[in-house]
């Protein structure tokens, strides 16, 4: 069994960890750290009989996740304060939204950057307000900066000079170069209040975003965590309205794939229509589980293929070629 499958098994069925050998525990912890799911695992296995060293490591992981939650909520509040004077409501995305809303997807979740969504027409105002409140540009590279501004679904990342925390300001949820163009205005119009002057996307839109992030953008790195988000969201909310919403955003294939993978890997209760399995799905699964017992990525060729696929989804061929050559000349090597 690959280590990726070991982690999936432990999250899906915590009792399956009873009787793991020391070597299996060691591998499980290493890959959970690598997939940034150690905090989630810490909560999933809480109260289980585990060896003493594992109990200590998971206890620390829960503590770190709790600290991460506090820091993420504080960062969201800082963004709210920065944008309130110009009248821009902060719509939280991903992990910060999950913890702010008290969702099970947020339990133990590691949260890196703060991701927010603002209307495209007001992106310049949002950037100016954040810069005035102490955020700074991260990308010193003129090509990267120009690329973000022209083609991406977000501003170049900003970092706060005192708190050292990054913020990604999105105006939609997929790059402008991608063939799929989700309805950003609908995302914002249907967003819901969190009771604290902060907002998040509507439940079906959160699922659409998670699926888009996982299967319509990028190379599936960190995919097990994103898929766990989807599992928790579906278990908590169900899938009412998801079908129509996915069609509206052009994300029906990505959502269907996310549902099939979540059902297959984590046993998520999804409707019958989303329970099929294709040869392509097997390849995705192969990519998602590509870790060795040290938590290191394996299956180099598979990863390379998905890296190229991720970029092919993001932009048309000629543009992709130009982009990769520029990146390659700057010394960037794929996966």
């Amino acid at each position: 069994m690959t280590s990726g499958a070991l982690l999936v098994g432990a999250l899906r069925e915590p009792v399956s960890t009873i009787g793991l050998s020391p070597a299996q525990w060691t591998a499980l912890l290493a890959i959970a750290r690598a997939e940034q799911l150690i905090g989630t695992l810490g909560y999933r296995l809480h109260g289980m009989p585990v060896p003493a060293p594992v109990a200590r490591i998971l206890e620390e992981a829960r503590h770190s996740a709790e600290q991460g939650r506090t820091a993420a909520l504080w960062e969201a509040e800082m963004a709210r304060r920065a944008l309130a004077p110009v009248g821009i409501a902060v719509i939280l995305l991903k992990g910060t939204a999950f913890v702010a809303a008290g969702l099970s997807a947020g339990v133990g979740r590691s949260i890196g950057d703060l991701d927010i969504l603002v209307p495209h027409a007001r992106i310049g105002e949002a950037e100016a307000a954040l810069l005035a409140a102490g955020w700074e540009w991260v990308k010193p590279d003129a090509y990267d900066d120009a690329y973000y501004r022209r083609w991406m679904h977000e501003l170049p990342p900003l970092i706060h000079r005192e708190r050292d925390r990054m913020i990604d300001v999105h105006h939609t949820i997929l790059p402008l170069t991608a063939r799929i163009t989700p309805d950003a205005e609908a995302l914002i119009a249907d967003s819901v209040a969190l009771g604290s002057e902060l907002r998040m996307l509507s439940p079906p839109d959160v699922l659409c975003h998670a699926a888009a992030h996982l299967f319509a953008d990028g190379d599936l790195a960190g995919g097990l965590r994103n898929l766990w988000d989807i599992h928790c969201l579906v278990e908590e909310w169900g899938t009412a309205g998801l079908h129509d919403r996915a069609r509206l955003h052009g994300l029906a294939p990505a959502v269907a794939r996310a549902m099939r993978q979540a059902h297959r890997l984590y046993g998520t209760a999804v409707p019958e229509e989303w329970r099929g399995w294709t040869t392509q799905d097997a390849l995705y699964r192969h990519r998602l589980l590509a870790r060795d017992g040290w938590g290191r990525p394996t299956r180099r060729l598979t990863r390379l293929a998905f890296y190229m696929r991720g970029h092919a989804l993001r932009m048309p061929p000629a543009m992709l070629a130009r982009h990769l050559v520029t990146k390659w000349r700057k010394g960037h090597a794929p996966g």
Partner: protein
Amino acid sequence: MRHVTQLRIGPVGFRVGSDWRQPIAALQDLYRDYPAPEDGIPDFNVHLFAARPWRRVLRPAVHIGGDFVMPGAAPLPLAQGLLAAEMGMNLQMALGQRRYLLLHASAVERGGKALLMTGLSGAGKSTLAALLMARGWRLMGDEFALIDPDTGLVHGFPRLISLKNEAIRVAQRALPKARFGPLLEGTPKGTIRHLVPDAAAIAAMARPAVPALLLFPSFGFEAGEREVLPSEVFVRLTQASTNYVALTERGFTALADLVRTVPARAIDYPDTATALAQVERLWSAL
């Protein structure tokens, strides 16, 4: 990973894997008297790897990875593989340790009480720890002292003592029978040679001690000594801790308790003989 070893230093278990045999063989030799991780499950993993397969043999360069990594760290030549392994273990502690408040300090123990010495690189922490070990103190570590937030006790982390440049000769003279690692020349910190802690330090490494004295030594000055105000001690120790912020309130409480209960002194010294006399005098006056 092709070559693997597991070991426990103080309360912390490690698994170190390497694409090359040499660093693992060096660890197994120098750490031969150390126990395995509790229940065979290490707290942290370290990987020593070649960035490209052919770099295993062609101009081998040892990259340091693990559960926790710092981006952009430069690789070391294979001859310094042991140093890479040590750095990898320190890095896991600095970035990942959450059970104990970490102080970048050397620690020695006598009569169940611990002396903690902290200061900038070059202040003489490692040298003084080695020399005090030569005089019968129990070495608890020359890099990290671990404060248990629940008990306030110091736990040892007696990994190999990392001696640099002139300190190598000083320690060899004081400890002629000790075991030393290979001489590593041209490292980012000059010449390094590792000293294996003595049998007493290894045998007692799981035994914590009550912190009794905090010292801030400074090498290269006329002999002097002063009391350090709690406010200054607090700030210095927050700077000497890599995980103070991450431990949040637990870290603050542990540090505040330490500062409140343990006397602190700064000493200046022109040579190690003076420093050792200052330490003994301060210790006996406690």
